[in-house]
Structures are given as structure tokens and as C-alpha cells.
């Protein structure tokens, strides 16, 4: 493999400092469906008056990068893998805001589902077992990280390539086609509810899998007007994170139940699982963790090396975090 | 061709499909019992239009009946009823026919996807079907055309293949709907001969639709004229009349039949 070019052709230095005001008539296309709901529920959407914000119901790696290529999107909301893959495929992108979970290890996005009767009690037991693996997805990267943590190489387990769409993983687990597979969100709860009686369990991996980013194509960020507008959006985004944190009832009602059609129970489960949010004002630690992920992927998937720092647009470093913090203080007052 | 109406000259070959129910009215020429074909009070209609309005007809085993009648009078409808092909046509009446019925359709009806030979052997189970079919094809003048597709044949050739298809069978009842319509005079005479040979050999009951009065006289024991959905006239043809072409009786019968068909004065 390894034909994609590494590194970002646009260097951080080539970006002009962010303008304080957004030129009239600036439009940004935003793929950030859940924050959109938060902005509307909280009324924070008014902060964005004067900017033409067009929301698209697009999120996740493949879809946002496709939309970036088509110039159909200016900013998207993803986890930590898509910016890496986007760079590897020659799309120059930058992260402009990041959110994490406090006590992330105990509030993971994913847990390792264990098939009934496969006798896996700890990560090391994975040796020789069949593990579901989806190379392009966050779950795939997580599996590699889990193996690394357990001190196992890819060859020590049997990786079964399987897309994680829908309930494919829980189907594969329950029919014992695989012994372990990462399950996320409500799927964990459902899997246990259905198959715990048969001996199904889940295993915490003890890794941080919490990053959530806003990212944009460098081409967009090089446009001063759009960059200024995106700075405003990042600020509102930080405030919205705080609002969600502070208004679990409204969030449950307005997002999970009304917008996503979940039951109150499921929504509450997700809110509880997420724990407290953390939007840092400094990215240093996060970049370090990101670099580890990159190193692992580059090694395991035979990809060129990247510098994690190149994936971040440092002009935005403090914006979301500051907004989050300030809003929190304001809310407390 | 010596059988007379209701006569029981030849092999008793009346089939087992349905016994004729003798509940007929009218002056049908014979009772149903012992007949190869027995039709009583046959009514058929398409929509509101009555096509057959009460047809009674009996054909003895081995008897050759010609059916004449104006275009659209219901000849084919009657034949289709006898062949049991009118499942979906409204009507009533009692029909009794033998088991093995063979039909020559008004259109030659060759399977377009099968060769000429395949069309002739269609449905034959005998092991010598092929050689018999080849022989029949040779008899109708189509030796060497066994492998042709039907669409490569002329109209008359197609008709002869259809004829060959019925010649290789040994039906108890042969229903033939204008089987010679597209043939020239000479070929037609040859085909008459073939049909007569078949009849002589296996003595099937025959119902032949034709528009050619001369043909009817030459071939049939009895000529039935259909009109307004009923049997309008029945004329018996004695052997003397049918063979002696120039005889006065022949000419008279010819004239009468044409009159039955509405042609007044001598036509060409």
C-alpha cells in the first residue's frame, strides 16, 4: 500500500491571524447535527446572527471527507481517526475544536463485547480469538490499540473484517461468529440486555476513546472570512457543550427523545455514560495522545508517518475551551 | 369413406372422455350412442353476441364430415369447442368426443422456436417418431426442409407442415380448420390424397372446415352448412357423386351447396 502522500502542504504559517469580525454575507456549511440541536434548544443560535450558517445532516469520517471534497461542507464533526485518514488520502484538513470526557477511561464510547462462552475475561485472553475488525473505522483503530495495550500483535489474534454497520457486530457476537467486537453507545446496553442471560459480557478496554473534533479543510481555513466565521462557530460550539452539560433534562427531551427518537431510558443511559465533558483550552496533551494513535496506525496499517501537530489549526486552540469555561462560570453565577 | 351418418361401419373407437347425454332436442341426424362425436344443443357466445345458437351434430366413427359456412359463422368456434380449447368461453351444451383428438388449426401454428421436424414430432412418444415425421414431410413435399425454421417457409409450406403434424398421429377424431387454404391446385390434390390415405388407414372421424365446395364434395361423406349459429343444412354425399366429377348429380350438389352459402346463379 502506502501510496498516499504524507504531511500537509499548507503550513500553519500560511494562515493569516483570525479576524475579529466576520464580513457580512459570509456563509459556512456545517455538518454537526447534534450541536445544531443544542444551539437551537439553548437559543445560542442567536450568537451566530450575521453569519449564514447552513447546517447539513452529515457527520462521521467518510461522509464529511466526501463532502469536503465536493466543497459541500466547511466544517464537520468527527472522532480522532478521520482527520488522519483524510490526510493520508491527500485531503488537507485541520482540527479547530476538540471535546473530551472527564474521567474518560471510565466513560468510554466503546466497550469490547464478548461472545457468550468465549471465556475472555481480560484483554490478554484475546490471544487466538476472533476479533471483529473494520479497518477504516474508529472501531478498527480501537481494536489495534487494545491489542497493543494487551501486548498482542495482529497475528496473535484472528482479525475478522466486518463492517460495523447497524447491529452487525452484536449479531456476529451472539451467533459466535466472532469472540470479541467493539460495541458503542446503546448497542452495549442492548447487547447485554439481550444476551447476558446466555453468558455475554462486555469488557472495558481502559483506553481513552473520547476525542471529538470539529475539523475543516485547510482550503476553507485559508479563507479569512470563513476562518473568522468558523471561529465564531467554535465559540458557540464550546458554549453549547456547556449547555448540554448543564441541561441534561432538556438535552434528553429535545435531542435524544424528540430529535433522535430514542426512549427516555436509552437517552438517559447515553447521558450517564458520557459523564462530564472536558473542553480544554490547551491541545498539548491531546496532540500527544493523537500522535500515539497515528504512530500505531502507521505501523499496523503500513502508512506514512504524520505529525499530529500538523493536524491542528492552533489559531483556534483556546476558542472553544474558553467559551466552555466562561459559559460554565456564567451558568454558575 | 363409406360411412354414413349414424352408421357404425368402422372400428368402434368412441372415446371415454364423456358419454353423450341423450337429452337433445331438435332433429339431430342420429342419437349420441355409438358416435365418435356427439354435440347437443351447443351454445357459445362472446360477450352479448351469440355465435353458436344450439348446434347439434353427430359424427360416426370413420365418418368424414365437411363443415361449410360463411366467414365468421362459428366454424372455428365449433372446432375449438370439440377440441376442448374453449375453457374461457361462455356457453352451454353437451359435447362428447373421443380420447385422441388431433387438430389442424386455421393458422398453421408452428412453434417458431422449433425446427420443422421438431414441430412435426411434437408430442410423439414413439421411438420411430423421427423417421415417421421425415416420411410425412416427404409426403407433403418438404423432404430436405426438416431443419428449417418455420419462418423460413412459405405460407403453403407452413400449412403442409401442420398437415404433416396431423398425418403422423393416429387420432380417433381429426379436426381440420381449412388445412388447404394456402395451397395451389396441384398440391391441394396431392394433399387430398394423403388425407384420404390416412382416413383409409386409421378410419378417424373427420370434421373438415373448408370454403371450397368442390373439396367438400370430393372428400366428405356428409356436408354440414353452418349458418346463424346453427346447422342450416346437412347434405349426404354418395360415393357416386363424389367420384364422378362431371356427373349431373355432382353439379347439382355443387349448385345446391353454393345456394346454401348464399351464392345464387352459377358462380365462376
Amino acid at each position: 500500500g502506502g501510496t498516499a502522500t504524507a504531511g500537509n502542504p499548507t503550513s500553519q504559517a500560511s494562515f493569516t491571524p483570525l479576524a475579529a469580525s466576520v464580513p457580512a454575507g459570509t456563509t459556512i456549511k456545517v455538518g454537526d447535527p447534534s450541536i445544531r440541536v443544542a444551539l437551537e434548544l439553548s437559543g445560542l443560535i442567536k450568537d451566530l446572527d450575521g453569519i449564514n450558517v447552513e447546517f447539513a445532516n452529515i457527520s462521521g469520517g467518510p461522509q464529511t471527507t466526501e463532502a469536503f471534497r465536493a466543497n459541500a461542507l466547511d466544517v464537520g464533526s468527527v472522532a480522532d481517526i478521520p482527520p488522519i485518514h483524510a490526510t493520508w488520502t491527500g485531503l488537507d484538513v485541520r482540527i479547530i475544536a476538540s471535546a473530551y470526557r472527564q474521567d474518560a477511561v471510565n466513560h468510554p464510547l466503546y466497550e469490547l463485547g464478548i461472545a457468550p462462552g468465549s471465556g475472555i475475561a481480560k484483554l490478554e485472553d484475546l490471544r487466538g480469538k476472533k476479533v471483529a475488525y473494520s479497518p477504516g473505522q474508529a472501531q478498527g483503530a480501537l481494536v489495534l490499540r487494545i491489542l497493543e495495550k494487551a501486548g498482542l500483535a495482529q497475528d496473535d489474534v484472528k482479525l475478522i473484517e466486518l463492517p460495523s454497520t447497524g447491529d452487525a457486530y452484536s449479531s456476529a457476537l451472539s451467533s459466535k461468529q466472532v469472540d470479541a467486537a467493539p460495541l458503542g453507545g446503546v448497542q452495549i446496553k442492548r447487547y447485554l440486555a439481550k444476551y447476558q442471560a446466555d453468558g455475554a459480557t462486555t469488557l472495558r478496554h481502559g483506553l481513552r476513546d473520547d476525542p471529538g473534533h470539529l475539523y475543516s479543510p485547510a482550503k476553507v481555513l485559508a479563507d479569512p472570512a470563513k476562518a473568522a466565521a468558523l471561529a465564531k462557530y467554535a465559540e458557540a460550539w464550546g458554549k453549547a457543550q456547556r449547555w448540554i452539560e448543564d441541561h441534561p433534562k432538556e438535552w434528553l427531551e429535545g435531542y435524544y427523545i424528540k430529535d433522535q427518537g430514542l426512549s427516555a431510558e436509552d437517552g438517559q443511559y447515553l447521558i450517564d455514560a458520557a459523564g462530564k465533558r472536558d473542553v480544554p483550552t490547551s491541545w498539548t496533551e491531546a496532540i500527544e495522545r493523537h500522535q500515539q494513535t497515528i504512530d500505531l496506525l502507521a505501523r499496523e496499517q503500513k502508512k506514512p508517518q504524520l505529525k499530529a501537530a500538523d493536524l491542528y489549526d492552533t489559531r483556534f486552540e483556546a476558542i472553544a475551551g474558553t467559551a466552555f469555561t466562561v459559559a460554565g462560570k456564567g451558568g454558575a453565577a | 369413406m363409406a360411412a354414413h351418418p349414424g352408421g357404425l361401419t368402422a372400428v368402434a373407437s368412441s372415446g371415454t372422455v364423456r358419454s353423450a347425454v341423450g337429452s337433445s332436442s331438435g332433429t339431430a341426424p342420429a342419437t349420441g350412442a355409438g358416435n365418435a362425436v356427439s354435440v347437443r344443443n351447443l351454445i357459445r357466445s362472446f360477450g352479448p353476441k351469440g355465435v353458436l345458437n344450439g348446434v347439434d351434430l353427430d359424427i360416426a366413427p370413420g365418418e368424414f364430415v365437411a363443415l361449410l359456412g360463411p366467414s365468421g359463422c362459428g366454424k372455428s368456434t365449433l372446432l375449438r369447442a370439440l377440441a376442448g380449447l374453449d375453457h374461457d368461453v361462455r356457453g352451454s351444451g353437451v359435447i362428447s368426443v373421443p380420447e385422441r383428438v388431433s387438430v389442424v388449426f386455421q393458422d398453421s401454428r408452428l412453434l417458431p422456436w422449433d425446427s420443422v421436424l421438431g414441430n412435426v414430432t411434437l408430442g410423439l412418444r414413439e421411438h420411430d417418431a423421427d423417421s415417421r415425421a421425415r416420411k410425412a414431410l416427404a409426403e407433403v413435399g418438404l423432404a430436405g426442409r426438416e431443419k428449417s425454421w418455420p419462418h423460413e417457409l412459405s405460407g403453403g409450406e407452413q400449412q403442409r407442415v401442420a398437415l404433416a403434424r396431423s398425418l403422423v398421429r393416429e387420432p380417433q377424431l381429426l379436426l381440420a380448420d381449412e388445412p388447404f387454404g394456402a395451397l395451389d391446385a396441384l398440391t391441394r390434390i396431392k394433399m387430398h390424397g394423403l388425407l384420404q390415405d390416412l382416413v383409409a388407414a386409421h378410419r378417424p372421424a373427420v370434421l373438415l372446415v373448408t370454403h371450397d365446395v368442390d373439396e367438400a364434395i370430393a372428400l366428405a361423406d356428409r356436408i354440414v352448412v353452418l349458418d346463424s349459429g346453427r346447422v342450416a343444412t346437412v347434405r349426404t354425399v354418395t360415393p357416386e357423386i363424389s367420384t364422378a366429377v362431371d356427373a349431373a348429380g355432382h353439379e347439382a350438389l355443387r349448385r345446391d351447396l353454393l345456394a346454401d352459402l348464399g351464392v345464387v346463379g352459377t358462380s365462376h
Partner: protein
Amino acid sequence: MSAAPVLERPAVEPHLDPALAAREDVRPTGRRLGPGRRRRLAWLLGPSVLLGLWTVSSATGLLDPRILSEPWTVVATAGELIADGRLQENLAISAQRAGLGLFFGIVVGAVLALLAGLSRVGEALIDGPVQIKRAIPGLALIPLLILWFGIDETMKVLTITLGVFVPIYLQTHAGLRGIDLRYVELAQTVGLSRAAFIRKVVLPGALPGFFLGLRFAVTGAWVSLVVVEQINATSGIGYMMELARTYGQTNIIVLGLAVYGILGLLSDGAVRFLERKALSWQRTLAG
């Protein structure tokens, strides 16, 4: 020279009775090789059996509800979703997308089929690319479509159109190419203009093929929604299912499948109804 011809003239009354059915009717009854008469509502049998099997195996526990929700759960879910209006709304949006895509697909497919069917140049230019198009997996085309047409409604309708036009094209083209040469000869001898030839011979002759294409197309349009409504959609039946899949809401997934099944049956039935009306001239085994 010989005996005078004998005349018998039976004196039967004409008595065609409108109430034919009341009369005795004894016909020679050969084995029927065709499938026999069409029976109304018979088409419900298969789906009913399916539903019955599902219900029974759910009720007896043969079918694990964790694998496939029970029918009553699905009905209850449908009730809920209808009560809060979500099902109808999503269906309406989806129907609009599918309908538009179908419409354009039919037009494009039929026009291309005519062009390719009636001229060798048209065929040389059009047919190959269409075969290539249909050989390329639809999923693989989505990135290109996004690139060219963005992520809005246009792109969604276009994707459906691209899926739908293929069977219409293929079937109409084949139907057209299958027209008996005898009718083409007839058209030539009565001096039909090209337009009249298309109207009087080509279109009616290709109609059976077209209808079959339409049957593929209508279900194709519905099925496309699954893919299309994953991209920048906030409504529609495909979106609803995708959402349910991410949250593992099995009952909604199964409801979605049931809705697809019903939609498929209904649209297929509608096309076949139209087909029977339009092709009433046919005398075929279908009866």
C-alpha cells in the same frame, strides 16, 4: 348418373339465452397445461403465509425476538410512530424523493432505449456506457455524485434516477428489439412516418418490456432510499432506519423492513394492475 343429393334441414329454434350459466355445460375436459384462471386476492396468500409463519414462530418461541422482533411488537411500534406522526412524515418525504427519481428515471430510460433501439449509431454510443454504468456498484458512485451534485436533494433524486433508469432502459430496449419484424414491414408498407412508427408500433410493442422494467424500477426507487437518505437527510424512511440501526432499535428496523415489504408489494401490484389494463390485447399464458 347417380343418386340425387340428400338434404336434411334440421328445424332448430334459435335460442340464445342470456342466462347461459344456468344451462347444462358438459365439455371435453383435457388437462389444462396453462396455470388456469386468475383468482382475485390469491396474491395475498404468500405474504399471509409468511406473516403466519412469523407470528407462529414468534409466539411459540421458535424465533428469538432478539433476532427478529415479534409481529405484535412491530405493530405496536408502528402504532406509536404513527401516533406521533413520525412514520407518516418520513414516508411522505421518501415518497416524494422516490417519485421524482422514478419519474426522471423513466423518462431518461425510455428515451435512451428509443435512441439505442432504433438506430445503430445510438446503440453504439449509448448501450456500452449503460452496461458499464450498471456494472459499477452504486455505492462506489456515491462519492462521485456528491462531488458533482453536492449533498442536497438534487443529488438524492439524481442517485435514484441513475438507479431507476437502468432497468427501464434495458427492458424497453429489449422489448423494442424484440418486436416482430413482420410489424416493422407492415409499418414500412403503409408508409408510417418515423414518429408514427414509434407511436403505433414501437411503443406498444415495447410496452410489455417497459412494464417489467417499471416493476424493477419502482422497487428500485424505494430501495435506493436506504443509501440516499444516509447522506445529509433529516427525514425519510431510509434515515429513520439508519438512525434505528445506530441505536440498535430492532423493532424500528423490523418495522422499516415491513414497510419496505408493503411498499414493494403495493407498488408492484399497482404496476401489474396498470400492465393488465394496458396490455389487455395480449392473449398469453397469463390469461
